[in-house]
């Protein structure tokens, strides 16, 4: 096994035993990125900063007792502010934006000794499910370069799948970590809303956005969660609540096995006309869970079909407000030729935003505008209440909800042009965000054509431990190493 293929856990052991230096591991990752440049996983690389961080990590490692992420090369979604390093959010609007501060999660990673390799490609302002909505080069699926890698954290997922980093951070507003993780065959974890600080995350929809890791295996996700979770006074929605040791949760979960756990299969998810290959692979994973001792029960989430509609009102409404800050004054693109204030605002915004972002700003502005507020925004927020009630009832009957991540396989680049049909593919991941629950995507197999298929797990608020327990056991049972393999093209 070569250096770039190592998991965080494996690399951390090799680093701690001084079998390899962080400087060498970082150099290996940059060589790997260079060799796989066509995947377009990164918007910005920071070789100099990374090698300096690696050298500092090597000193810490030599002193002994360094934390588990010390010296480990990590990619950061370009929606997270990195001090002194270009942060574009995939947009022409921020093509020159260099933050003067680090996002809290970035600060925490640096403090833990992580080596930040660069900024991963994403859909513009995290609005998209294919990563085709970007002003930069579109990232490709490492398993088949003609296919989408998913979005909006597409670069993060592609970078992990292609071994161009050991792990990555993404953000998930309606599935933006779990869906690309599923399409790229990696682990994606969206924590409970409020577990992770959003300070320094360029806001899309504040009541839904949550930062989380994309990793090569379940234990690595737990390692990342241990570092990024925790209360942050700079984010008023960050919860004042202790963070359990998620690695311990994984290990205990493996010891406990699955006996006594009740897994719920939502009837409505399976009535959606799933791709037969997705259905088969998910059914096989469920059989393994049963063989491992879990009990299966059918549950009902009756308002599932309304989640997408509610989401596209709520997320667009919040986006229209959040993106009002891009006015060409303090940062971002400006039409310098405009000599009148209002024209300067509207021309700067029209030139800086891409078409999907404009579409959502218009939907959101419409939904919040006088005369339509009750019919759209208020109505969608009431449906949100009902969706949470559905979950509450379902989670009284089961511990973890098991389902596909997406109803379909990844599709060929450019194959879906119609926004509405793309929105509808997020039907299985959106409700998690509306309810603020933790959710994860775990690789569980492949289509006959060689595209990865993920399994989604959801649990009650702050029950990440249950997700890790199920995932760690399933991963072990599947022998995930068979699946990770090497994408032919990566």
């Amino acid at each position: 096994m070569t250096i770039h293929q190592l998991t965080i856990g494996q690399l951390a052991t090799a680093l701690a035993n001084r079998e390899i230096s962080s400087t060498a591991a970082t150099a290996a990752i940059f060589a790997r990125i260079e060799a796989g440049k066509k995947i377009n996983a990164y918007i910005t690389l920071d070789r100099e900063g990374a090698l300096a961080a690696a050298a500092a990590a090597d000193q810490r490692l030599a002193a002994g007792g360094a934390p588990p992420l010390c010296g480990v090369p990590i990619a950061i979604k370009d929606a997270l502010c990195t001090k002194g390093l270009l942060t574009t959010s995939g947009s022409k609007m921020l093509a020159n934006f260099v933050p003067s501060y680090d996002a809290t999660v970035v600060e925490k990673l640096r403090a833990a000794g992580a080596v930040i390799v660069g900024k991963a490609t994403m859909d513009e302002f995290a609005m998209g499910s294919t990563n085709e909505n970007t002003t930069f080069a579109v990232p490709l699926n490492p398993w088949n370069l003609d296919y989408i890698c998913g979005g909006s954290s597409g670069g993060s997922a592609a970078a992990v799948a292609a071994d161009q980093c050991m792990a990555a951070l993404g953000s998930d507003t309606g599935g933006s970590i779990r869906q690309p993780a599923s399409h790229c065959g990696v682990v994606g974890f969206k924590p409970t809303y409020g577990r992770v600080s959003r300070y320094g995350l360029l806001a899309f929809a504040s009541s839904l956005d949550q930062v989380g890791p994309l990793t090569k295996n379940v234990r690595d996700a737990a390692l990342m969660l241990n570092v990024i979770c925790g209360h942050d006074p700079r984010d008023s929605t960050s919860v004042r609540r202790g963070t359990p040791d998620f690695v311990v949760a994984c290990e205990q979960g493996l010891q406990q096995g699955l006996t006594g756990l009740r897994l719920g299969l939502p009837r409505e998810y399976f009535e959606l006309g799933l791709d037969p290959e997705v259905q088969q692979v998910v059914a096989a994973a469920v059989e393994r869970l049963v063989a491992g001792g879990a009990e299966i029960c059918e549950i009902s989430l009756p308002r599932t079909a309304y989640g997408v509609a509610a989401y596209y009102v709520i997320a667009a409404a919040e986006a229209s407000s959040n993106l009002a800050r891009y006015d060409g004054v303090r940062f971002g693109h400006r039409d310098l030729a405009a000599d009148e204030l209002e024209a300067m605002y509207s021309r700067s915004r029209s030139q800086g935003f891409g078409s999907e972002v404009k579409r959502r700003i218009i939907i959101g502005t419409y939904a919040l505008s006088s005369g339509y507020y009750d019919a759209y925004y208020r109505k969608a927020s009431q449906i949100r209440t009902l969706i949470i009630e559905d979950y509450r009832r379902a989670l009284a009957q089961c511990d973890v909800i098991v389902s596909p991540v997406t109803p379909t396989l990844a599709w060929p680049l450019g194959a879906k042009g119609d926004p509405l049909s793309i929105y509808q593919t997020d039907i299985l991941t959106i409700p998690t965000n509306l309810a603020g629950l933790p959710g994860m995507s775990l690789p569980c197999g492949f289509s006959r054509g060689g595209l990865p298929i993920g399994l989604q797990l959801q649990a009650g608020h702050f029950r990440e431990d249950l997700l890790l327990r199920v995932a760690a056991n399933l991963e072990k049972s599947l022998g995930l190493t068979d699946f990770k393999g090497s994408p032919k093209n990566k």
Partner: protein
Amino acid sequence: MHIDPEEVIKVARLARLELAPDEIADLATELSRILRYVDKLREIDTTGVDPLYHALPLVNALREDEVLASLPRQEALANAPLASAEAFVVPRIL
């Protein structure tokens, strides 16, 4: 729900967006379709249902009213497309 181009122009103005004629036409068609889809929300009776704006019960996050360090002016101005030594510069408004 049908959205005509005039409506798109009106909403774009509220959002401070200046759209090209082809963008307006496309958005009118797409928004009509999207809103027709969203109209399925009306199938659910929500009489007496409280709207929910956050998934977790939130309380005000308060801290002591202490002065903390703020961003140095030069750093705050560093990303401005147009700035003087001490301020953001915008087109004349008076």
